[in-house]
């Protein structure tokens, strides 16, 4: 062994990790592909449900629905903004693509919540689970998304479902982390008080920890939403449709117009979703009025009450009017 090899042993000694991984992956693909294919099924159903709902409803009704939701959550100002923004999306002629992307993002976020919140609770409660999850979450957050694009395609194929899967991998970590943080930040004395009044672990979680961690969990949902949206373009490389596909195709053909339009669609969608979740968050922080005493529901109950003639109902109107004044 010459001196050069001693000083730089890595020319001779190295671990062919890349080869191992490739062999391993091939083996998994060969033997377990049906298993991975079966995982696709529930995601596919969810995606189809969202997609048929969003693309099936006529744009005008959809815009109205968004407006009503925004009014209920955050008041009429935001409702006006959101209706305008969605109107712009329609005018630009990218309504269909936007709804496809939205259904993808919603499916991904829905699954992220279903996976992330319980995992976050688990890691907040058990330090062993936290120690186990931490390096995995670190990896998920730092590894470039292109790296897992290929294995996912090999295992799940191409299309919208694998797109949702890569989006989940990319967007899940902040939700888990913020859920954990939120639960750990519940004041110790509140936990103690719950225990002093005889709460079971289950009751402690549902009646104190989760409600108090809600602003933090919603911040996590907001993060997950934004990250899912930013994954849309990357995911379009594995044949995911929607706005990302527009951008990708636009770049490929040097069609600046198409790419920019798609980009603007993504930005508008991001603004709409962000504002909605942000205001849901600030509402979770300061609860002052029950949801049925605000926004369109209040108007609706008032209208219903005026049509009733019974004096008791009249009183009800009076009460809910007083409710708005607070």
């Amino acid at each position, binding site marked *: 062994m010459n001196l050069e090899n001693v000083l730089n042993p890595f020319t001779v000694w190295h671990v062919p990790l890349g080869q191992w991984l490739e062999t391993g992956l091939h083996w998994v693909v060969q033997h377990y592909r049906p298993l991975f294919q079966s995982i696709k099924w529930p995601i596919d159903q969810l995606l189809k449900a969202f997609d048929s709902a969003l693309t099936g409803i006529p744009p005008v009704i959809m815009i109205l629905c968004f407006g009503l939701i925004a009014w209920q959550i955050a008041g009429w100002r935001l409702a006006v903004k959101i209706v305008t923004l969605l109107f712009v999306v329609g005018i630009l002629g990218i309504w269909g693509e936007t709804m496809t992307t939205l259904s993808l993002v919603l499916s991904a976020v829905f699954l992220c919540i279903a996976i992330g919140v319980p995992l976050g609770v688990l890691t907040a409660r058990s330090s062993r689970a936290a120690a186990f999850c931490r390096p995995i979450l670190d990896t998920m957050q730092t590894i470039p998304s292109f790296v897992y694009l290929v294995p996912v395609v090999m295992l799940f194929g191409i299309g919208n479902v694998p797109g949702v899967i890569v989006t989940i991998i990319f967007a899940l970590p902040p939700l888990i982390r913020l859920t954990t943080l939120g639960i750990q930040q519940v*004041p110790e*004395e*509140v936990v*103690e*008080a*719950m*225990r*002093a*009044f*005889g*709460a*079971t672990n289950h*009751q402690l979680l549902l*009646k*104190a920890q989760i*409600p*108090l961690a*809600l602003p933090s969990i919603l911040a996590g949902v907001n993060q997950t939403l934004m990250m899912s949206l930013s994954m849309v373009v990357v995911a379009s490389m594995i044949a995911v449709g929607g706005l990302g596909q527009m951008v990708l195709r636009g770049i490929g053909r040097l069609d600046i117009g198409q790419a920019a339009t798609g980009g603007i669609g993504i930005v508008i969608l991001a603004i709409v979703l962000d504002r909605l979740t942000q205001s849901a968050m600030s509402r979770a922080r*300061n*609860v*002052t009025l029950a949801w049925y005493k605000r926004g369109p529901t209040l108007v609706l109950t008032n209208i219903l009450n005026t049509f009733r003639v019974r004096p008791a109902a009249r009183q009800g109107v009076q009460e809910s009017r007083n409710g708005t004044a607070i």
Partner: protein
Amino acid sequence: MEAHSIEFKDVWKVFGSNRRYDLTCIQDGRVSKADLLERYGCVVAVAGVSFKVEPGEIFCVMGLSGSGKSTLVRHVNRLIDPTAGQIVIGGENISKKSENEMRELRAKSIGMVFQNMALLPHRTVRDNVALSLELRNIPAKQRHDIAEEKLALVHLSGWGDRYPDELSGGMKQRVGLARAMAADPAILLMDEPFSALDPLIRRELQDQFRELSMKLRKTTVFITHDLDEAVRLGHRIGVMKDGKMLQIGSPDEIITKPRDPYVEKFVEGSSRLKLLTAESVMAPLAEYSLTAPANELVGARRLALDANLKELATVLNQSSNGPVVVSDREGKDVGVVTTAFLLRGIEERA
């Protein structure tokens, strides 16, 4: 619910995860506290405390922060498990109870009030008060009725729909008190409940609490670092230092006969005049009537046994220094106070 007694039998609590120390060495003093901390990373919070709180009694545990008083009170509902020793509630050793039985006991028989209130900010005042009932799955209508009743008890009727954020500190702590009493528990644990409040509100709450506890007669362990508070509220006071109970006695005993230099220092600044009551200065009625003119007591004003210096002085002034009759709780006349008796009482204590 009938009152229970609480008995501590040689309770020890050592904090720290290290289990290699030998408790007997600590108990007989072979390992000092400094050694224990340095060698094992453990801290003795409660060191061999034994005492009994009688049914219906208010027992004040007094001590500075770090004296182990808050740790001690958490043994009663086993939020903290003792390292050694027993806690017996109403004749039953609670160390042997399972986690489920313990939860039941906490929800039904032990109410607790915390220094920092620890209300749930996302719930209305009513839902906060009804917490222990809700945890026992009592139907909403019933528990809300009970909550309203308890809110009335602490003079907060009509605040049930508000959120804790909308309340002042004193009101929050009254909600805390109502919450502790919602299940009508036999035992109340008060962990420095009024310490975080400003002096005026504190005084007001102390009065309210005294009034309430006279009415409800719950066995109470009341933690405080304020001697005045302990004297005002406690039937008996125990002074704690470094996890040990230095002296247990009536407020009068603690202040007039401190048995330990630390207790002496603790009570030094406190005025003994506060402990002057009609009972302590009066002459028994029979004795007084022997020497007094026959008609002197006709139309004399009446005072309760526990009337304090101010009340005595006021009433004596109003009856132009004539004798005042002291009557007991049943309304029976038992003694007489004159200005001369009062002055003698002040002289003894000044």
